[in-house]
């Protein structure tokens, strides 16, 4: 029996889209200019970064606005070795990785006992601390001038090859995240979003859960940082400013928070708005703001949520998904009153 037949129409379409995206990803460098290829590479890295944020903001309901601190620390780790010592690629990546993970551990220890608005405030402070250090430790970070002289590994030096390297790494990380959010750990994180008290009642140590969340999320942010620093071959404090931490959150919201594909789509939209549309329209920032307004007005669950709701309503014959019910207060009330 054809195994595809066993799948629902929705699953088959999803599979087709996934295969289509992979094929497009493989052939892309042969059909687009090197400039567009650079933007796609940047979008892939941004997507990985946004997914790491979405693991916290979307799955656990703990919005972080300091994640660029982890990404940036990894970038500075690589940059320092490349720019100030004669360490090779292996040492650069090792130092970058250790630096990023150290930041994740410290961030986790600082924020593991907080939630809600306090969690947001602590993460903002964490991001600002890294920015402050990046701006002031001139001998290590080069302050505003940044760290030049970072070079990609020789065998993936060209933009063409670096794209494939990034694609492979991002795919592996996405797969890992896919597994993570479906693991018991992922379900516990979703539990945190629902009710932290309930998670504690079930026997989980919610503080430790959040600490692990920082480690896992920090791991992916660190990988994104290492990819980004080799893409730009440069790092300076603008990589760790508040805006750099807010951007992945916006990407996740735009695409669809609480999904893995959402941050991906959000990252592509924002990267292309920032870098490609801005070449044609001077007031690209207005367009970006309007995009957000439109998404908030018409697609509260992001682009993915809107498309999926439309699909289920028109094609699949079902009305919305479970998540859409949870996110819309009126429907949630209705569901609760029915069940209650």
């Amino acid at each position, binding site marked *: 029996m054809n195994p595809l037949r066993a799948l629902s129409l929705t699953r088959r379409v999803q599979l087709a889209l996934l295969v289509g995206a992979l094929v497009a990803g493989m052939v892309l460098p042969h059909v687009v200019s090197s400039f567009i290829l650079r933007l796609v590479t940047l979008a892939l890295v941004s997507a990985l970064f946004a997914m790491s944020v979405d693991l916290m903001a979307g799955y656990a309901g703990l919005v972080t606005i300091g994640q660029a601190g982890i990404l940036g620390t990894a970038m500075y780790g690589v940059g320092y070795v490349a720019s100030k010592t004669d360490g090779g690629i292996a040492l650069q990546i090792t130092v970058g990785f250790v630096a990023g993970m150290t930041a994740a551990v410290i961030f986790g220890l600082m924020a593991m006992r907080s939630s809600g608005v306090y969690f947001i405030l602590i993460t903002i402070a964490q991001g600002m601390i890294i920015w402050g250090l990046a701006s002031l430790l001139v001998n290590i970070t080069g302050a505003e*001038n940044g760290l*030049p002289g970072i070079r990609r590994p020789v065998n993936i030096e060209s933009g063409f090859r670096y794209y494939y390297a990034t694609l492979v790494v991002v795919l592996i990380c996405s797969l890992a995240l896919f597994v993570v959010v479906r693991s018991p750990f992922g379900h516990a994180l979703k539990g945190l979003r629902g009710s932290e008290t309930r998670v504690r009642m079930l026997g989980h140590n919610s503080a430790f859960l959040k600490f692990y969340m920082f480690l896992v999320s920090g791991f992916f942010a660190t990988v994104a940082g290492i990819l980004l620093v080799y893409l730009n071959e440069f790092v300076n404090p*603008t*990589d760790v400013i508040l805006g750099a931490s807010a951007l992945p959150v916006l990407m996740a919201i735009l695409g669809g928070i609480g999904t893995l594909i959402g941050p991906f789509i959000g990252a592509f939209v924002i990267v292309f708005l920032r870098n490609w549309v*801005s*070449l044609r329209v001077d*007031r690209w920032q*207005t367009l970006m703001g309007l995009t957000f*307004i439109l998404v908030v007005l018409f697609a509260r669950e992001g682009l993915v949520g809107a498309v999926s709701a439309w699909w289920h309503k028109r094609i699949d014959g079902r009305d919305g998904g479970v998540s859409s019910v949870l996110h819309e207060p009126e429907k949630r009330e209705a569901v609760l009153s029915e069940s209650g």
Partner: protein
Amino acid sequence: MRKTIRKWIVLAAVLALVAAACGDDSSETTATTAGTTATTAGTTETTAGGTATTTGGGADMFTELKIGVILPLTGGIAGPGADARESWELYFDTNGDGTTVTTSNGVNITYVMEDNASDPAVALTVATKLLEVDDVDIVIPGILASTGTAVGDALGERTDVLLLSPFSCNDDFTQRTPLEGYARPAGWSCSQTGKAFAQWAYEEQGYRDIATACTDYTFGYEHCGGFADAFTQLGGTITEQIWHPLGNSDFGTYATQMNELDVDGIVGLVVGGSAVPFVTAYSDFGVKNRAPLLAGVTTLDQSALRGMDKEVALGAIGHSHWSEGADNPSTKQFVEDFEAATGKIASYYAAGNYGAMEWIVAAVEAMSGPEWTPDLMLETMKDGLVVDTPFGQQAMDDEGAMVFNVYINEIQEREDGKLWNVPIFTYENVDQYYGRDRDEYLTQPPYTKDFQGTGVGG
């Protein structure tokens, strides 16, 4: 139902805004070449194919040159970015047809301008676009030192591109660790002007004890280091160095600190939006009654003066290689033209970009040969070329840095009530090692927070 109508009304409003956002796009987007080349009357003839153009001299000559201009048109320093853009457009409007300038030897110079959003990472992306999509020959890498460094680093290995930087001024790019294919036409080295300023303070004013209050990053270290080093070499003393963070807007605590100093003057350096609050605090807290402000290049630049109160800034002393009130023909002409086009008095950012274009044209007109190369252009620029720019006459040294006048400026009120810089003293032909032997100078480390000259601190 009502909800649906409301949504549609919002949608319509949003779409109207989008239309407004894109509306004047045509007037604001940058000029790109479209294969057409306009020539100024009587100078050249362009063949139908747009290729082999020959001059009256008849020699084979390259015919096209394309410049990629990266500017911060949005983001933190969009204000100075706007000045730089307007002056660039002014050059192409007054000397060409707005998109193309044709030199006297028949070379069509065109440009593509892109926004770096005041962000080095965006500047890098944009630089890739300029090089690989637009295929430009020359890149002007923006205003901030960070974007200059990022783009400079990325282009470092490209031998077919010339990097010309009229703004970012990192000393070592033309000193200890020179970049390949790089020069600073109409630009400067960060520590250069302070050396002449120190001489004025010591010799003309008789100051002996000076403190500095400069921005805590590389530009601040180099700019104030240049002053501090030269001042102590002359025999003066730097009694105190205060560093305030980049982007600071509340100078109350620093003004209080400065009020406790017993010095002849205080060198104050701030950049961008910090200038108005700094100069205001210097006046309001009464520091200026204890010790005169000796302003760094960006502190009292015209771009900052536009937002300053008269009673705060009037009479303040600064220094710069730019002085909009200077009494020389090329400065006067530029200030007049720029004001006619934009309604603003020209700032250092406006003069810099305009001057860079004058350097490019002057170099092209002095060049010959069928092929343009970055090295050939650099050699021409360094080979005794003297260019009349808005700054006055400038020359380039062997390392790609400028030799120019440094003006000691006083803020005065113009007839129409606007504030501007007017020179009260001029040092001519100031080079990047002013007053020092090059080889001896290069044995000392670059200026950092810890090293402000051999005679400072310790």
